[in-house]
Structures are given as C-alpha cells and as structure tokens.
C-alpha cells in the first residue's frame, strides 16, 4: 500500500453511505499501471457504487480516492477525461451506424476531426469491420457490438478502462476473443478494471478483489487467493467469501 508512481488508482478508507446504509465500508486498495484488476462481489456487495465513485460520477462520503493522479472530489472532469467506461448495456447507439458511433464518442472526448478520421480507419481495419462501417449497430450480433463498444471506450487512449460485466450472454468463443482484446489493451499499457460473474474470467486477471456487504474480503493474485482460501479454483474462493 506504499505510494508509488506506478499506482494508477489509489483508494484509502473509502466510505459511501446512502442514509444509514453503508454501501462501501472503508475500502482501501491500489491498482497498478497496466494491470488487469478484477473487481468481484455478489450482487449488492457495493461494486457499482465504488465504480461510480472511481469514474467521477458520484462523491465519496469520506476517504481519499485518486484516479489517474486526479482527486475525485476536486478534479472530476480530469478523471472523466482519463478513463474509459463500458457496460454491457447502453454503451452504443443502436440507431447509429458503426462509423457514426465511433465519430460520436470521439467527439464527446473532444478529439479533433482529423484525429478521429485517421484513428477510425485504423480501428475499422484492425476490427476487420470496413465492410460493415455503415451498418446500424442494432443489426449486428452481440459479440461484434461488444468489440466495438470496447474499442470506443478506449478510443481516446484513456489511462484506465472500466468494464462492467462486459462478456454477459456471448458465446464461449466470442467471450475468449474479447479477453484477448483485454490482454492486448493491458499489454499496451491501459489499466483494465473489470467486473464479471464468470469465475473462470477472474483467473485471467493479474489481481482480484472480492467484495461482500460493502467490504473487501479478499484481494490478491488468483493463485495466492486460492492458496489462502484452500480452494481449487476462483469459483470456490468466491463461494467461501460470499456465502
């Protein structure tokens, strides 16, 4: 927990209350630059509340939180500029085309037209989606939408990308293709902060934190967590913590 230049997220004693309900109960953790950090927990454990605070959408009740070097109390706009966000739902406009969605998100982040145009071409090429660039998002398979949504979320080269259950509902091959995109992003230096209900995906993370009732009850590499909880896989670790 020492402060080093390598920490891209620093959270100390984060508390968030809604009335009497304590959604985040003294969370303390760091995320390192380029790390794939799995943020797990049961439904209602407080994950979404914490992600909303980390992405500058909600104020903590108390505690210190720094994201990409910026304070979430005083520098929310700077936090927002330096992060990307993708949820399973609502991340793309169904009635816009692939190209229009990319253009739209580029514009929101204040990128120049010239830059957007150039980067769109290389993105379409990398995704092998040149042929469908003028197709409406609504007519594409879910797996494609997710790939586009992820690409759009990191289009402005954020330092961190938050992925909230990005792989729900897709077939097992598409799910694995998606994880290869995550590995690639992390390899290029983007920090990936991901939530999932697939416990095998927890094993793909560099480190994992597991929340239960507002608290972090376990945080380490998947291998160390399995040793600590004497479990054969992450599914068992999760069941031991959250049950």
């Amino acid at each position, binding site marked *: 927990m020492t402060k080093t230049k390598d920490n891209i997220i620093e959270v100390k004693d984060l508390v968030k209350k809604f009335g009497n309900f304590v959604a985040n109960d003294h969370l303390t953790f760091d995320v390192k630059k380029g790390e794939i950090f799995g943020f797990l927990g049961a439904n*209602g454990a407080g994950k979404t509340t914490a992600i909303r605070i980390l992405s500058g959408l909600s104020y903590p009740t108390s505690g210190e939180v720094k994201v990409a070097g910026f304070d979430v109390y005083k520098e929310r706009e700077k936090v927002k500029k330096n992060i990307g966000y993708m949820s399973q739902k609502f991340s793309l406009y169904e009635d816009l085309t692939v190209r229009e969605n990319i253009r739209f998100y580029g514009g929101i982040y204040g990128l120049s037209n010239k830059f957007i145009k150039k980067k769109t071409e290389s993105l379409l090429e990398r995704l092998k989606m040149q042929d469908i660039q003028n197709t409406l998002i609504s007519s594409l398979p879910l797996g494609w939408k997710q790939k586009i949504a992820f690409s759009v979320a990191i289009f402005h080269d954020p330092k961190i990308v938050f992925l909230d259950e990005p792989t729900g509902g897709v*077939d097992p091959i598409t799910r694995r293709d998606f*994880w290869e995109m995550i*590995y690639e992003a992390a390899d290029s230096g983007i920090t990936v902060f991901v939530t999932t209900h697939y416990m095998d995906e927890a094993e793909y993370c560099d480190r994992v934190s597991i929340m239960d009732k507002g608290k972090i009850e376990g945080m380490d590499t998947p291998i160390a967590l399995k040793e600590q909880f004497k479990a054969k896989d992450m599914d068992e670790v999760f069941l031991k913590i959250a049950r």
Partner: protein
Amino acid sequence: MKKMQTHTENIIEINQLKKTYDKVEAVKGVSFSVSKGELFGLIGPDGAGKTTIFRILNTLLFPTEGKVTMMDLDVVNDYRIIRNNLGYMPQRFSLYQDLSVEENLAFFARIFGTTIEENYDLIKDIYVQIEPFKNRLAGQLSGGMKQKLALSCALIHSPEILILDEPTTGVDAVSRKEFWDMLIRLKKKGITILVSTPYMDEANQCDRVALIQSGEIMSINTPDKIISDFGRTLWAVKSDKTYQLIHDLKEMDFIDTVFPFGEYLHITFKSDDAKVSFSQLKSKLEKQNHSKVEIKEIEANIEDCFMELMQ
C-alpha cells in the same frame, strides 16, 4: 434415445419447429422432446433462439412451421388449457413493482383460480426466504429476492411444467448456486422443468441438455454423454506468461485450437496421431522463454464441447 422414450412419457414434443421474424430465421427446424419429470436445459448464447422457443412453448408466439405439443395438447389450438398447467418465469422481471410481495403472490394465485394456502407446500422452501419482507413493494427487492418471488408466482398454481428463461443471467455465483439447488428440489416434487442459460457450467445440473447456437441444436444428450462424445485429445497448458502463451501456441502448426480456461489454456491438435509429447512441448515453450510450464491431459467440459461443435 429411442429406448428411453418408450419407457417415459414425453410431456413436451417439438417437431421441426421453425420461427421467422420478417427475414430473420430465429429458429431453424428444431426437434426435441422432454420427458415427464425431467430437468432439461437449453444452453446457448444470446441470439441462439432460446427465448423464441420458450415463447412458442408458452403459447405466446405462433410457430412459423412445425408441430409443438405440451402435455399432448397443441400449442396453437389448445393454448388455454396449456396456460393453466404451465408456470413461466420470463427473463425480465415482470411482476407488479408497485404491489407488495404478498399482493403479487395473491394476484397470481387468484388469476389461476387458486389460493396461496392451497399450494403453499410447493413454494414454502422458496417463499419463507422472502416472507419477512412480504409487505415490501416488489420493485424495492434485491435481485435475488425478486427472483425468489418470481419463482413463487410461477409455481403458485402448481403447474405440471415450469419454464424458466435465463433465471441466472447477471446473477452472482453464490445466488446462482442457490437457485439451482431450488430447481433440483422442485424436480424432486415431480415438476418438469425447462430452463435456459448462457452459463455452460450449469449444464451439469440438468438431466439432459440441448446445446443451441444460431437457431439450430448442435447436440442433445445427458451432460456425461456430450462430454464422452468430445472424442479428441485435450491438453491443459500453463506458463508464467499467459498472453504470450496464447500467441506462441497458436503459431505452432500442429496445434488446432487454443482457448483460455481459467488459469490454463486448453489446446487440441490438428491430428491426434501427430501430437507431440508433454516433454517435447515443454522444451519448445521453454526455448520461447516461458517458465513454470505445466502440461497435462484433461477431460473436456461442456464448454469445450460447445466450442468444438461451433467450429
């Protein structure tokens, strides 16, 4: 397969079912049957056609082609009788959010001309867990509690068949396990259960499963039989550099598929005769700067089989 059907009664029969929306063929000629008392799983990703099939079984949609009977009744002509004997839990929470827990349950009981008391035994196990909150509005329940209420409402008229559309999607691992425990207890009471899920690991809880993709069934069998039909050598490999390992293995010309599975990668070979030995592969990888290399032969799981069938 034939043999089993002569011994048990088929409570659901689907024969060459097709469903087309405008130009999209959502279901492309699907046939299967479900025996009385069976826990049958329809397993596949979003867009595979699971919900369409369930809506046809529920008499909420007409088939474009094909014959479907439930309890020997035709889903098109005899829909009223079918509906009285069917419990349905749709994917989206569809109870009345502005009624309390108890009011919702009473409402569904009355629609089917029964009372909560009459069938209380059937739902008791599930309902007692939410009974302390019986005066709370349904819209204010947590996800897990909503699910238990929806299941109670689907069961309150003591149906012969229970159809559950992706009850565990978006639900955490603990609640998923609890939900399956509930289903297995219901099965013991003699209810035929048809359930869909995108989670491959849930297949093992079912008596039989149909693996479905793009409107077509790829395989129907018991989970054990689907696994024993895999028929290829499967190895699990890991090293200290997973991302690099995926690339390096994909580059090897004798390797067919490379898929991450938890901390390991599962690999298959282009030809099982031509495969290398553990030590040969290990030394190859160590030359490519991998350390802590571990290789073992493993048995396929349902997800391996699903991916194999997709190729």
